[in-house]
């Protein structure tokens, strides 16, 4: 796959990425919430397959905005304007023949604040498969168990699948949301600060879950916690005021960042 050489991506990373299969690629992506205010400016990024990619950057720099573009959740915002291309597996997701529901099925999402539906645990997980046309109870049962296992939640909830999901603890609810996203068998999972509202133990569990998923899914995660990014991600993107400053191998980015801005940010001299 052709790689767009941009200043944000270091030479070594480019050569590294050449060996990877690129799943998400943006070409000069700009986004305006209002005509005067751009939230993303000419972002060019390549996200490799079956790796964990972290987005870091100061608050309001556009991490969530970029992430939400990958499954077109931004489409709903009135007055929004998006320029440039987002290619997923080489296909521009804004092409008219791309079906929105199908895209969202392939690109799952976990939100910052856990948002289980006020239904039973089982129904929460079954929601995705059901709206995507599955109706056989046995098949769905299988998917429910598998997804819960993948999210490390099966042992805790297998006895109470019919109880309300709202009775779970905060950490369990978030893992339920991960399982819910997994039930659609997506290729990509987008996570927007999935652990920011959780205690350290729950956070650890989420990180474990991500670690187990990394071999089978492409994961893009937004985080404010730099240690977390360093711990779990293979690649890291550092953003500032809507621009992609540096995209690099996580190790390199945190030890020998290419850009001065990055260094200032990770050493805490900034913001």
């Amino acid at each position, binding site marked *: 796959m052709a790689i767009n050489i941009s200043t944000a991506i270091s030479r070594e990373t480019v050569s590294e990425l050449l060996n990877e299969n690129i799943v998400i690629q943006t070409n000069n992506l700009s986004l305006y919430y209002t005509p005067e205010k751009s939230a993303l400016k000419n972002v060019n990024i390549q996200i490799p397959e079956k790796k964990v990619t972290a987005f870091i950057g100061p608050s309001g720099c556009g991490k969530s905005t970029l992430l939400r573009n990958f499954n077109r959740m931004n489409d709903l915002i*009135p007055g929004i304007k998006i320029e440039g291309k987002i290619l997923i597996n080489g296909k521009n997701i804004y092409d008219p023949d791309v079906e929105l529901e199908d895209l969202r099925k392939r690109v799952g*999402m976990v*939100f910052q604040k856990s*948002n*289980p*539906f006020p239904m039973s645990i089982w129904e929460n997980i079954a*929601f*995705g498969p059901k709206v995507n046309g599955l109706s056989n109870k046995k098949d769905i049962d299988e998917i429910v168990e598998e997804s819960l296992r993948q999210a490390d939640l099966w042992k805790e909830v297998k006895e109470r699948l019919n109880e309300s999901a709202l009775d779970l603890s905060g950490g369990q609810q978030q893992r339920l949301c991960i399982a819910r*996203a997994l039930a659609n068998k997506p290729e990509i999972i987008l996570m927007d600060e999935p652990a920011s509202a959780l205690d350290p133990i729950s956070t650890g569990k989420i990180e474990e879950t991500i670690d187990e998923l990394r071999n089978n899914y492409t994961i893009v995660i937004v985080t404010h916690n730099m240690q977390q990014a360093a711990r779990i991600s293979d690649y890291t993107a550092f953003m500032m005021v809507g621009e992609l400053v540096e995209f690099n191998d996580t190790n390199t980015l945190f030890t020998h960042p290419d850009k001065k801005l990055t260094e200032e940010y990770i050493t805490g001299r900034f913001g």
Partner: protein
Amino acid sequence: MNQASKKFFKKGDPYVLLTSLGLLISLGMVLWLLAIVLVKGLGIFWPRELVQINLKGENVYLGELWNSGKEISENEFEQIVEEEKTQLKIGNRDLYGYDFIWISDKEIKTMTKPQNAAVFERSEYGNLYGFILQVNLNNEIVTDSSELFNEAEKGISLAHELKIKLDEIEEEYNTLLTPLNKIQREISLLKVNSDFLTDEEAKRLNLLKEEENKLTESINQPRIVLEEKISTLKERLNSFTVNVITANGDETLMQLKNVVRLYQPNEMGIFGKSIHYVQNLWEFLSGEPRESNTEGGVFPAIFGTVMMVILMSILVVPFGVLAAVYLNEYAKQGALTRIIRLSVNNLAGVPSIVFGIFGLGFFIYIVGGSIDQFFFSDKLPAPTFGTGGILWASLTLALLTLPVVVVATEEGILAVPKANKDGALALGATKWQMIKKVVLPNAMPGILTGLILAISRGAGEVAPLMITGVVKLAPDMPLDFNFPFFHLDRKFMHLGFHIYDVGFQSPNVEAAIPMVYSTALLLIAIVVFLNLLAIYLRNRLRKKYKSSSF
């Protein structure tokens, strides 16, 4: 103003007092209203004892003590005096022409409660008060005073049985004659314009005449048998009579088939009275009205009210919910949606009679008229749907209550967390799937709140119904065992209208007052019951869909 009182006002104590006073007054008025309706509405079913009043003159009256009051008048020395007076329900309208009299207390010589005084509740002319002289049971005459009451009761139940049998046979007779009647009707229609008949029609007339003759002959035998049966039964029924003497000494003969109930209140113990009370209450709830609605039961009105409210709910909830969903989820928010919201809210303030007139003009004349033209043209000019009926009344009320449902549903929809909506969409749900699976279930408590408000408003509304299908006395219920079971074109009775009709339109207002209270109580009870049902449902749903607490 001195320091202390300044502080007093600053602290707001007087306003607290004022607010609590306001609450107290409103609560007090509601409780007062309820108490009056309860006491008067339920008290009427208790059997009252019969009092015989002998006046200083000749007159003797027997009846129920009804009311007492004071009369202010001038005496012969031009002084203003107050006189106590008593109202007595003397019944016997067929004999004296009026049910109630006022008696000045100073004219009363004695007041007694004769043991064997009896009350006959009749299907016509109201109650008869008097003493049983003689009971005639199909040629068997009873005059033994200890037997009289029991025999009369036995006679009443026998007469009722006979009446049922007679009704059955008459029904049979009617079905036997139906085909013949149909032919005869067609013949008479053809005969009316016999001068202008086409050949075909003339042929048809001859054919019909032949058929008529044939049919007449064939059913002749069973017809005569039935007619004989009917006349013997009628004769037998008429032989069940009772001779009654009133307190004044007037004697009257009464057919037992016209007696609904007979009792001797002065001989009843508390137990007997209780049974009588329950019977009365049951008759009120389950019986048909009698005597231009001032007696008997209100079952048709209960049925009409409940059915209308249910129909209204079935109509208004889907419309209101769909409108609210569109307004909130699909419509582009802007000036137009604001105007629509404002109009919907203002619709709630339109006087109900305006809705009634709209219902009459649009639903009945235009929609109903067109339905008649297309589907019931054979019955024209007699209208089927082109006249008031339960469907049009329910539709009118649905329109009237639409704003509350829309507004409440909107509130429910707005309360659905955005995170849940986004979550559903992110899982690949279409917008409609998201609305169906996330928004509507979550908004259900709001929808039910709307329904509760709609029921409260709709069940008590009378004005728009009066021109869209309510009647004083409906011959048939809108739901029965005859195909197609639901007769939405039929007129119906309604408790609210019943109150108005009985209380203000009846020829015998005095006798109708208790009915007004009982009916009002019943209407309140039904509205409360329907509301409780909806509230129960809502609470169950609330528990299920308590929003994410985390």
